């Protein structure tokens, strides 16, 4: 069905980006209301596509013929619709939170302009209907993230930004190579249920294309050893942007891998090429490796960054197993992880602004001063570990089912080991916050506030609590129609026929 809604979801935030600088000049309040409205409408638009997609409608739109062969083309299927809705909702939470977080920050106009621009491009990634369109949005959002990562303009931020941009451009070049090669082999085709490539093509080309794509998207999806930018970029970026960076930007890499695996190659061809065992091994190693490193990090945002690497590798693992259940698990884990990790980063931001705490070792007894923040943190932690009935459990349940379905029980160890390590690197934080005595007052560092009233204002607290609360909601309502699982089932139905 032809529809302009997907295009609107990209254009609206772009308008917001242009308006951000102007509105900021009028007043912060006008800017907050204007951008909030735009972002809300975008979120509503993205959600309004879900019912249609569930019924099996595919929304599409030819925008513009960029070259004689290739159109800019949008196409919303179940996978894209779910990712788009996740992106828009998490972004809305991040935007509301930013209003409080950035209140005393510098260059707010620039921050909000790029924040909205990145939303536009990420929505474009979710809704793109062919590889060139995908590439365009993917490169744009990769590159235009840079000003947000170096926003603080400290030497560390600039160093982290440089690292980020080098990794990402290398990855982007590999993706470009993959797209060019696919175009060369298969011509300009849309990403539909029918895979672009088939077994009749030269296998050395096919393997080259696969590894180009996997390495390219692997940089963004933070597969070890391509993860180097993640632990530096996250602590450097402002907290609300860390939340979306970790929640959906890293996931955009996994999303790209899904597009490649299911729609460029197709399940049967990949089984024939026999590359998935390698991909599964890489993913399994990443789960463990990053989780072990996370245990050692004292900087809270750095620890969360490593946790992201570990958790997103679950998604890659789920894709690599090539079973229906595992695919469902991988798809819903993107959404579930987005809100859990978003909540954790938003909490980390609150700890920084309200209590001056950046390190895990300083968190003793903080729950007394910031009870709501730490409750949200604890809830998201439990979700991350995979405690039933929270959302993290649902995705891990399906991943586990998929592992058994694929008859590779070894990966159950990875799954459970990763969860165990998540408990090891996250639970001590919660424990320290609730059960250890706070350090003596004169040692409490930069904190000059009243020690009893560190809790954040509502504007920042509400998005944090919502993100964390979604862990329960997404867990309890997992089987209802319209929830991620039903969309994942729809997507799986298209990919596994």
């Amino acid at each position, binding site marked *: 069905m032809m529809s302009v809604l997907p295009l609107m979801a990209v254009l609206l935030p772009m308008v917001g980006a242009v308006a951000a600088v102007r509105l900021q000049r009028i007043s912060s309040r006008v800017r907050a209301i204007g951008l909030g409205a735009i972002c809300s409408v975008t979120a509503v638009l993205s959600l309004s596509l879900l019912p249609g997609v569930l019924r099996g409608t595919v929304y599409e739109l030819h925008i*513009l*013929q*960029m*070259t*004689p062969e290739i159109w*800019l083309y949008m196409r919303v299927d179940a996978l894209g619709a779910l990712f788009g809705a996740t992106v828009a909702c998490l972004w809305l939470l991040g935007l509301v939170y930013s209003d409080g977080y950035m209140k005393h920050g510098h260059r707010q106009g620039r921050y909000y302009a790029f924040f909205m621009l990145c939303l536009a491009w990420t929505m474009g990634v979710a809704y793109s209907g062919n590889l*060139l369109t995908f*590439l*365009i949005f993917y*490169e*744009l959002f990769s*590159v235009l993230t*840079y*000003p947000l990562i*170096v926003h603080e*303009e400290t030497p560390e*931020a*600039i160093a982290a*930004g*440089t690292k980020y*941009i*080098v990794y990402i*451009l*290398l990855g982007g*070049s590999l993706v*470009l*190579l993959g797209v*060019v*090669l696919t*175009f*060369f082999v298969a011509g300009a085709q849309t990403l539909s249920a029918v895979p672009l490539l088939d077994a009749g093509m030269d296998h050395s080309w096919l393997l080259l294309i696969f590894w180009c794509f996997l390495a390219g998207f692997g940089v963004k999806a933070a597969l070890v050893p391509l993860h180097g930018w993640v632990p530096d970029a996250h602590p450097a970026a402002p907290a609300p942007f860390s939340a979306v960076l970790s929640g959906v930007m890293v996931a955009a890499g996994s999303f790209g891998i899904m597009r490649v695996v299911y729609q460029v190659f197709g399940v049967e061809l990949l089984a024939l090429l026999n590359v998935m065992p390698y991909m599964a091994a890489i993913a399994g190693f990443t789960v463990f490796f990053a989780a072990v490193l996370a245990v050692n990090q004292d900087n809270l945002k750095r620890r969360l960054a490593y946790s992201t690497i570990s958790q997103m590798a679950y998604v890659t693992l789920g894709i690599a197993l090539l079973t229906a259940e595992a695919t469902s698990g991988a798809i819903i884990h993107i959404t579930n992880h987005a809100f859990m990790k978003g909540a954790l980063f938003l909490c980390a931001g609150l700890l920084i602004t309200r209590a001056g705490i950046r390190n895990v070792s300083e968190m003793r007894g903080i729950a007394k001063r910031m009870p709501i923040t730490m409750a949200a943190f604890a809830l998201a932690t439990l979700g991350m570990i995979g405690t039933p009935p929270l959302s993290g459990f649902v995705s891990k349940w399906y991943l586990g089912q998929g592992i058994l379905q694929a008859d590779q029980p070894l990966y159950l160890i990875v799954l459970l080991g990763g969860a165990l390590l998540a408990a090891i690197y996250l639970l001590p934080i919660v424990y320290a916050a609730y059960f250890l005595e706070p350090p003596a007052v004169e040692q409490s560092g930069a904190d000059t506030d009243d020690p009893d009233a560190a809790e954040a204002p509502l504007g920042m607290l509400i998005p944090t609590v919502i993100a964390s609360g979604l862990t329960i909601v997404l867990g309890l309502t997992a089987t209802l129609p319209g929830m991620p699982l039903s969309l994942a089932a729809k997507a799986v139905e298209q990919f596994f026929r």
Partner: protein
Amino acid sequence: MENWPHWLVLVVMAPLVGAAVVPALSLRNRALAPWIALAVMSVTSLAALMLLVRVAREGLFSYVPGGWEVPYGIELRFDEFSAVIGIICLIGWLAVLFSVRYVEHMPNVVPDRIPYYYALLLLNMGGMIGFSVTGDLFNFFIFLEILSLSGYALVAISGERIAEMAAFKYLLMGAISSLSVLFAVGFIYGMTGTLNMADAASRLAGLDGSPAAPAVALGLMTVGFMVKAAIFPLHVWLPDAHAIAPSPVSAVLSGLVVKVGIIGVIRVQQIYQDSGVVDLAILNQLFVWLGAISIVVGAFFAIFQEDIKLMLAYSTISNIGYIVMGLGLASTYGVIGGSVHVFNHALIKAALFFAAGALIYRTGYRTLTDLRGVGKSMPLTCAALSIGAISIVGIPPTAGFLCKWYIALGAFEADQPFFGFALIFGALFIFIYYIRMVNAFYFLPPVRSEVVDAKEAPLSMLIPTLSLAALCLIMGLAGRIPLSFIEPAVMRLLNGAGG
């Protein structure tokens, strides 16, 4: 209206006559000079527009001044590659506008001489336009000399410390190149007895005996144009000349004048492809390699430059490498990519040099360290510079992306995938120095108070800069238009069915 036959002669004569008229008319009031030059460029642009419309409608056409029929008369020929005059006129017009404020502030400028600056600029335009539309080998050489000589003078005029030296280096290399082109023209005339290109092509085909003499002519001609196009290892003159010249002239030199070398290479290929007397495959393979080396060498040196204009100059070497590689691949996609980049690189590089010129004009500084923090004081100029940077690196969907996409495809099509990889990863090098620039302008603490207090560039500079930056985006999104425009000419070139 576009069928009026005399547009083709008007488009060449207007700037050449204008060059003589500008100093004469502005003797009394030299403030008139830029506006007369602008009027001349407007007339030229109108003529160019008509020619573009006509070639898009009916394809190749020619004009014989005075009704002297080919091969006895001098022929002007207009094909799709000649459409480069559209870009020449656009950038020329904007460069004149940009110069209005810029030249008054150049060091050591003698106010009475300013009209001569515009005369030289028009002469340069006329030379380039004539070069692109001529169908006659000797005129080919004449126009090459017109544009080269005016180019040397325009570099020397800037009054910078090493301007004379840069201009002299340029002159030395340019003289060698012109000489070898002249020799080659003599060779061809000696062998065929004609100076008309199409005629020469058909007579070369009927030539008996060894292909040595045509091959020598081909070699001389190619070397001559390679110097003009600054292809490695004949690029050494370019960085100083382009960095030292006044910024609007840098835009013209880097965006347009080096492309003349490329047009020359294409014309020579047209002649030899049609005649089939020499196998071009070896030459093409050489182009691919030299192109790849140029990409890497240009990018490598650019990384270490502090001076923004020097950095942009090295980046030109790199981009010419792309074009030459695309042409050398001799596959449909590759040649299309290379030809379209002739247009797109002109837009992008002119936008970058205009923006850099505006920064230098307002702040008086030109190194990355000195210019720190300028993003805040001159936001529009720096935004244009950033768009140009993104575009030249080839981030989709900007104009620079099309070239990367097509030339990489062309490399696979020509079964030389290695060059496809080299091209895509070569672009990464280029990004490194633009990241340095963006960091300096926006994110690093300022060191110069003049930079922090600088005002946004004047309107006469902003208009050229911003409109070209906008075109960098538009030409990427509307890539279909130049691509499908150039396609017939590329097919003719590859199939050897008449230039």
